[in-house]
């Protein structure tokens, strides 16, 4: 890449949004129900599960990437599925990074509700579906925090994307892996352009979510 190729930056940005967005949706779909279940119920071994989630929240993406690489590579358990050096593989790796964040923050939001919240809603005779709607409504600030944390975590990670995606041009190259490559090649101008887009994206997403969060607080 010589100079700044805007078309290429746009292509990489769109791919980044697709991969990270898909991983975020998957992480929310998996993490929120688990977080709600863990936050609301006491069961044997809950402490161990919560400790594992907390440890997972701080897991280095490169270690998650290594684990995925071993599983997805030809000789790995899922070698035949063709996930290595694919966008699907990257989405799975990023989902694994984001899920503990979503679970941990959802769990904390549910835990912050009144201890008897669920019983108090049940005694009003509200059906299960509406109870879930009320609960999600009550913890919406926590859920927004989970979205911000998860998106921030996967937008900025490079280790897992590099190892599982392989930074293939036109295939698995995303903003973080492209910045690393351009820097190594000495194309600082391109690296800085890509970095500006990444920072802009991070600010845009975080800003939008914070605005929603603030408006919800005032209502």
């Amino acid at each position, binding site marked *: 890449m010589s100079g700044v190729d805007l078309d290429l930056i746009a292509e990489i940005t769109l791919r980044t949004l697709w991969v990270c967005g898909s991983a975020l949706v998957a992480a929310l779909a998996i993490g929120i129900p688990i977080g709600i279940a863990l936050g609301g119920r006491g069961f044997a071994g809950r402490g161990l599960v919560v400790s594992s989630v907390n440890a997972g929240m701080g897991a280095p993406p490169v270690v998650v990437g290594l684990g995925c690489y071993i599983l997805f590579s030809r000789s790995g358990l899922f070698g035949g599925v063709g996930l290595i050096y694919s966008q699907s593989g990257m989405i799975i790796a990023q989902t694994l990074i984001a899920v503990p964040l979503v679970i941990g923050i959802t769990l904390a939001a549910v835990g912050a*509700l*009144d201890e*008897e*919240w669920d*019983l*108090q*809603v*049940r*005694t*009003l*005779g*509200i*059906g299960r*579906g*509406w109870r879930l*709607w*009320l609960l999600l*409504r*009550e913890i919406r600030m926590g859920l927004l925090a989970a979205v911000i944390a998860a998106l921030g975590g996967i937008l900025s990670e490079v280790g897992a994307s590099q190892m599982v995606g392989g930074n293939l041009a036109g295939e698995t190259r995303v903003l973080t892996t492209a910045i690393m490559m351009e820097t190594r090649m000495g194309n600082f101008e391109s690296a800085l352009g890509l970095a500006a887009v990444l920072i802009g994206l991070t600010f845009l997403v975080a800003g939008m979510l914070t605005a929603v969060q603030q408006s919800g607080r005032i*209502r």
Partner: protein
Amino acid sequence: MRNAPLGRVALAAKGLRCQLGSGSSSFSLEVASLDLRAGEVLVILGPNGAGKSTLLRALAGLERSVDRNAVQHGPGPVTLVFQRPATFSGSVLFNVRAALLGRRLPEVERRDRIARALDRFDIAHLADHNARTLSGGEIRRLALARAFVLEPAVLLLDEPFDDLDAEGQRQLSLDLQLAIAETDVAVAMVTHDLRRALLLADRIAVLMRGELVQHGLRDEVLLRPDTPEIARTVGMTNLVTGHVVRRTNEICWIEISEGFEIPTTADLEIGCNAWVGIRPEHLKLDIGRGGGQPIGKANVESLVSDGLATVVRLRSRDQTFTTHLLSGRGLARRLRPGDVVSLAVEPDNVHARPIDSEGV
């Protein structure tokens, strides 16, 4: 308290057993039989840890360890208002409306019910306020409005007057009384406030250590408690022991110390040991105007007034007694600690039971 005939059974518990926790911290609740009737208020009394709140939860179907068949109720919702009611984020109106989520009601009826519930507990003017900014008393009113919007057949109340000041308690109990009378709802209420309980109760149930030890009409339990422990719980604070020394006509005389005899209409054998219970409002300071049989003299130990009633503590040798006077009038103004007064009672108002295994 009402004088209407008994309503239909709205909820019946039979063979109710509830087990909480395990090992040394376990707690079990057992109720052989208990029913709630439409338009009637059952007040559940008992010391801390007796299982009062657990019983309410069991009746509400919220305790998993309770057999589903142990509690049966007729048509209409059964709802419980918790001691610390939770509010949903949003307006007071949303909080009341939320109770009707998922119910198929015409919008007009939905609005009517919500407006009635808000009016009933005098929070219509707070409809647009954020529920999180309400005071403790307003949250209680909101919780009651949220319960009444369901038009419940059975309403279970856990300490509805907790943390309210005297005026707040008075207002809320009046509103609650009116709402119960208008809706014919069956109510079971747990409260520590004996005075409020007595104002509202049609029947009283006493729980001790997870067991329903006495249950009956209000005055039956207040005036004829089965044990000294129950007597204390229902406010019969003058408890002494003695033995029956003589009988004249329908009256037995129980000597509690030399020269100090208490008359009772209870049927007791001469010579038997008995415990005696007198409610404070039934122990009179004899000032020579009749009203009761004189029973002995006592020294005034202390007088404490809350503005309405003056609680007088008295001592006669090693026995202490308590009586209530109307504050600011007559004896309540004249008495001083150390004064000697004569005590008197009506034999009808003296509850006595032979002592078996129960001590005082």
